[in-house]
């Protein structure tokens, strides 16, 4: 019995020592990342007057540099492909926590996909794990219930996940290049994009909305409101029919606390497949036009 406990203690002491060696992995993993934007937020390096949040629609359809050049105010794009409103809200929270307050926030919404549960857009934990050397990131992982606080204090390994072990210098691919302004426009079309306009009418159901996303959406609006930040909810074009009910729903949730900016559906460019990367994203030349519309909206408001 005593022998059993003795061996168990030795086993765990050795494990405890081995575990501490993984501090090296934890500390170097941030350096291998190509996209540095979240790290810039934590390191207080975001100093823009206009910030853009969103998923891939925000990243590809809005060119922050164009806004900077046109308005003379620094704009920066913090949109992450595959991210949901919960992640956008987290980014905004962290930005306000560590950086100067922006004057304007543009949230590029996913229309009918903004609030329903969807596997393709989620909270990007994979973006957080390479940065676990930073205390605020660890705190978030605990808050979100991904990791246990006590275990994190005891074991370095508990702070890590598979992303930390991909210890090679990441490179941008042609589809996910983050430019200096944080935007990710693309100049080519997806081979999967047929150019056929899908006019199928889909109904929007409030019942399909995810409670966490709904709460995050309201939190995002309130956060801007409390900090006296002008909030613009921007609706980019799609190459398929998007239900009006979804934008009505977002407008009712915003309850007058945000301005709504819709793309000009009468423009012939937005009906031309040549301006689209795929069904829900524009190419760079499409993004330039949509960004122009945002700029004129900002000038008016």
């Amino acid at each position, binding site marked *: 019995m005593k022998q059993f406990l003795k061996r168990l203690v030795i086993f765990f002491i050795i494990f405890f020592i081995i575990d501490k060696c993984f501090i090296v992995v934890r500390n170097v993993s941030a350096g291998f990342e190509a996209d540095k934007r979240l790290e810039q937020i934590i390191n207080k390096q975001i100093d823009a007057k206009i910030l853009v949040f969103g998923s891939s629609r925000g990243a590809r359809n809005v060119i922050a540099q164009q806004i900077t050049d046109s308005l003379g105010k620094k704009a920066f794009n913090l949109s992450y492909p595959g991210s949901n409103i919960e992640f956008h809200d987290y980014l905004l929270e962290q930005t306000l926590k560590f950086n100067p307050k922006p004057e304007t926030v543009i949230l590029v919404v996913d229309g009918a996909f903004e609030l329903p549960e*969807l*596997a393709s857009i989620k909270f990007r934990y994979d973006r957080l794990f390479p940065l676990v050397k930073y205390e605020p990131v660890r705190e978030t992982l605990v808050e979100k*219930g991904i990791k246990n606080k006590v*275990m994190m204090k005891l074991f370095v*390994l*508990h702070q*890590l996940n*598979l992303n930390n072990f991909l210890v090679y210098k990441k490179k941008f691919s042609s589809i996910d290049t983050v430019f200096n302004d944080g935007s990710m426009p693309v100049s080519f079309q997806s081979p999967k994009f047929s150019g056929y306009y899908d006019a199928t009418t889909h109904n929007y159901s409030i019942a399909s909305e995810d409670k966490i996303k709904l709460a995050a959406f309201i939190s995002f609006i309130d956060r801007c409101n409390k900090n006296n930040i002008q909030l613009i909810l921007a609706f980019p074009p799609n190459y398929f029919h998007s239900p009006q009910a979804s934008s009505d729903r977002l407008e009712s949730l915003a309850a007058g606390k945000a301005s709504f900016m819709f793309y000009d559906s009468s423009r012939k460019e937005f009906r031309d497949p040549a301006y689209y990367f795929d069904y829900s994203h524009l190419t760079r030349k499409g993004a330039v036009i949509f960004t122009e519309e945002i700029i004129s909206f900002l000038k008016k408001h």
Partner: protein
Amino acid sequence: MFFNSLEFAIFLPVVFILYWFVFNKNLTYQNILLLVASYFFYAYWDYRFLALLFFSTCLDFFSGLQIESAKSQRMRTFWMWLSVLVNLSFLGVFKYYNFFAASFADLLGEFGVKTDLWTLKIILPVGISFYTFHGLSYILDIYKQRITPTKNFVDYAVFVSFFPLLVAGPIERATHLLPQIEKPRNFSLAVAKDGLRQILWGLFKKIVIADTCAEYANAAFNNPLDHSGSTHLVGAVFFAFQIYCDFSGYSDIALGCARLFGIELLRNFAFPYFSRDIAEFWRRWHISLSKWFRDYLYFPLGGSKGGTWMKIRNTFIIFLVSGFWHGANWTFIVWGALNAFYFLPLMILDRNRDNLDIVAVGRTLPTLKDFLNIAVTFLLTVFAWIFFRANSIHHAFQYIGEMFSKSMFSVPEQLSTVRWEILCVLIAFLMTIEWFGRENRYGIETTFLKKPAVLRWGFYYLIITMMFIFSGKEQQFIYFQF
């Protein structure tokens, strides 16, 4: 308190130390400790259902004594039926009432009769299907005079509520577990080490494989119209591994924990995905439930002694009841029926006992025939799991329809934080370990056991490291809902 939680990581050593260091001199005290610990463990889930567990335990204990002391056969039968019916009533109300009420209302609706649904907002008590079956086996064994009832209430209560098996089995028999509870237990270093190894392997299966597969499978099943055929296929295969690793992982942890207290529980899994036909699969999957149904339903119905039609009838009854045991949903019944259809040709051709041995015993690799049989059996099982996982029959057919589409041969989509290719590597790792350990009771029972300690411990550290890396949100075990 999940087995894969920090709370359990504290609870288990505390009970272990009290058991062997404080109460080791007295069997009664040890059993009282196990009982208190088990009730605490259960109350941690939901203390409101402790009364139900306690009532069920009291009923079966006193019914058992009454059956034994009854002067007439009529009174024996009365006490047996009283216990069986009350137990099944609890199960019926908590687990099946809403299903029957809704199905009845649907049936009336077919005839144009509109009814208000009399469904109730009932929470299913954790483990009710398991502890009810423990109690039933005890009563039925006393009635059949296979055992004599215990006169010690604490011993019986430990038999019903022993924490490793309380919420998801294995479904124990009084003939197997009660004698172990009644006899003094001595600490064995080899058994305790073996128990820890089994716990480690169970945790690996749960945390690394099941929970990681779950993320992909959930995404595939939750939005069946959004994904390609190949994504559905991968989602179904990952669900097959999720449910295997979730449930067999739980069973490994349960068996390992019990071994730490000097108690051997019934084996629940025997590498089912290496089965060469469906009959073999059912001898290797959830063994304690299969044997329960065999002994208390199949044999009393006449088993396979009658003619072909009787065999077919009994087979269908067993599989349908087994499906229904899992949950009050038509999907489980169809899953059971599908398995009965798979089983039927083997039984009619008298081939259901062809594969009683372990595949490729004494060899490194299986023969081509064995390999093909394993692959076909696995694919049949994966197909049946779609019904098990789906929310409704319509959902299952929708999923299957999308799976067998043109895009079945495209590259699967990435639906989870861990890429599906990495998941395949993890599954390959699991299956390799289990293949080489298939002649043992669990995957790593003898892995590196005769190798130097450095290699053996290195392997354990590797497994623990993987568990840490893949650990995310605590995921409930699937079988807790049954």
